[in-house]
């Protein structure tokens, strides 16, 4: 399948021949074999141009800022702030080199980001898998209310969560520490992971556990050895999305972190000073922050729809 919809029985069989017809890469809406050229075919030649043009515009709009950031990160000081855009220039690694030498060395920031985002995502996946499984299988009364409470903690405005958390963290000494950041990130990653993993577990037929129980497993063994391996893609997707959310966070980090825990987005914003911005270094940091998450995101693209709609669309 070309998209992330999981193949389910509810998807009508008619899509199958269509896949085959589409496979030959001819015609916009190809007629099924045997039916003469559809009336759409005539108008499609014109509309094909329109489609191509629109997509080209969308690509341009999407990619130009990213390409510009990448290019600028290899420019020297004069080219970065040149009044006429420089497309051809002598590339230099100075911006990246300056990031790792000198007073504000980026190393610790990267380390803090990796630690805080990584641990938070890992914890979210572990606890989320357990709780998600429980949520998917439980028959308890008030299950809907429980599910709503979980998701509402994820939907809560960041700014409204940060304020009381700041007070609590200050009280128990979690300001400017990696555990503090991990906990802060869990406020949005944990509900997300629970909800998402429960969507993935709901896809696994309960009869599989039944067979495992008949075969003599305890429920925990059935979960560990039969069900969990079947949701490997769910675990990876959840981990990656949690990682991206935490890695990209600025709102929590700017409030809770200090010299011992500042993350990459903070490093980027600190380049903005009263005396101006070193755009060369900034575009270099931008590249360092953005590229790994893009690669991670694309790696789980097949399951992105499930992930980003919290399973609501897959269930269709």
């Amino acid at each position, binding site marked *: 399948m070309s998209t992330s919809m999981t193949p389910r029985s509810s998807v009508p069989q008619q899509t199958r021949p269509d896949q085959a017809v589409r496979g030959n890469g001819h015609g916009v809406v190809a007629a099924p074999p045997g039916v003469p050229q559809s009336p759409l075919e005539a108008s499609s030649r014109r509309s094909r141009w329109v489609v191509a043009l629109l997509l080209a515009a969308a690509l341009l709009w999407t990619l130009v800022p990213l390409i510009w950031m990448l290019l600028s990160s290899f420019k020297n000081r004069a080219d970065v702030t040149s009044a006429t855009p420089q497309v051809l220039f002598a590339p230099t690694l100075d911006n990246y080199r300056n990031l790792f030498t000198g007073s504000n060395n980026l190393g610790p920031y990267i380390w803090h980001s990796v630690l805080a985002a990584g641990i938070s995502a890992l914890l979210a996946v572990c606890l*989320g898998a*357990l709780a998600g499984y*429980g949520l998917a299988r439980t028959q308890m009364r008030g299950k809907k209310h429980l599910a709503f409470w979980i998701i509402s903690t994820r939907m809560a405005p960041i700014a*409204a969560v940060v304020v009381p958390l700041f007070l609590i963290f200050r009280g128990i000494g979690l300001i400017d520490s990696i555990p503090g950041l991990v906990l802060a990130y869990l406020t949005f990653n944990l509900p997300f992971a629970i909800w998402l993993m429960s969507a993935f577990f709901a896809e696994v037929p309960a009869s599989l556990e039944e067979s495992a129980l008949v075969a003599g497993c305890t429920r925990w063994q059935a979960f560990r050895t039969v069900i969990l391996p079947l949701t490997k893609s769910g675990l990876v997707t959840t981990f990656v999305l949690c990682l991206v959310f935490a890695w990209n966070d600025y709102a929590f980090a700017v409030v809770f972190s200090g010299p011992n825990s500042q993350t990459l987005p903070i490093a980027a914003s600190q380049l903005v000073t009263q005396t101006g911005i070193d755009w060369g270094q900034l575009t270099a940091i931008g590249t360092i922050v953005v590229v790994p998450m893009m690669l991670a995101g694309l790696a789980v693209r097949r399951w992105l729809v499930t992930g980003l709609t919290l399973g609501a669309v897959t269930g269709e």
Partner: protein
Amino acid sequence: MAHVADSSPALSRSAPTRSTAPKEPRVGFEGRMMTPGLILLAALSILPFLALIAMSFSRVRLLGGVRLELVALTNWIRFLTDADMWMSWLRTIIYFVLTVGLEMALGVGIALCLYRVLRGRNVLLSLLLLPMFAAPVIVGLLGRYLTDSTFGLYAWVLRSLGYTGDILGSPATAFAAVVLMDVWEWTPLIALITLAGLSSVPQSVREAAAVDGAPAWMTLRYIIFPAIANVLLVALLIRSMDAIRYFDIIWVTTNGGPADATKIVPIRLYETAFRFFDLGYAAAIGLAMLAFSIFIARTFVRLLDTRGLTR
């Protein structure tokens, strides 16, 4: 999902008493699985929520340890009588409608185009998705770079089209710029979700319409849109709730300015709390935001429920 396993004899070894009444309200295996996550989540959400309520009725002192001094309704009265605050809500709503509206329109448009592409669709989609994974702070700072009046690429393009003003320096254009930055980042999400919806529309129905000579817009209006309405709803509501949450882009580009033009509620809350350290008042604003987002989330879940999309 039916709890078949409960009635099977094999289970009686691990849970002998549960075989007859699967619905009895006691902590079973599922409950034990949920416990660690839910306890942590409760600690991370209920405690701050209670703190938020307490703070909204207090003046918060931070010097020499945290102290709350009860001030009754002072913060709330201030909240309701603050004219600037009402302007911020208005701005928030405009910002919200513009970003989500543009994202929906463009996202659905891109998805419809992508759906007609046969070769290279996956590569195209991957490229179009990239902004979603960019940190909003970087998006904002990059936006500042691109719109800088002396060396920004987009400012240069606009200059050659005849516009010479400072984009982030005047209210209307600054507002438009922060809206477009958000649109740049999140339109791909809508396109991705819509494309998934389109892929589930049976091809035979579309062909039947085509054979009957239905014009493209009619196929779109009467066949495609009804078929993907549910998916669009999910996309709309997911995006709505995230649009209320985020503020990073504005915080690093305009900081609410110029002349408060981009000061939406989250920005005001942030500066109230962490620039003026008026945490009590910030808590009142936060509670109002929370109520607003829960209202939207409720609507979301109810709509999905009536359409049978939740499990």
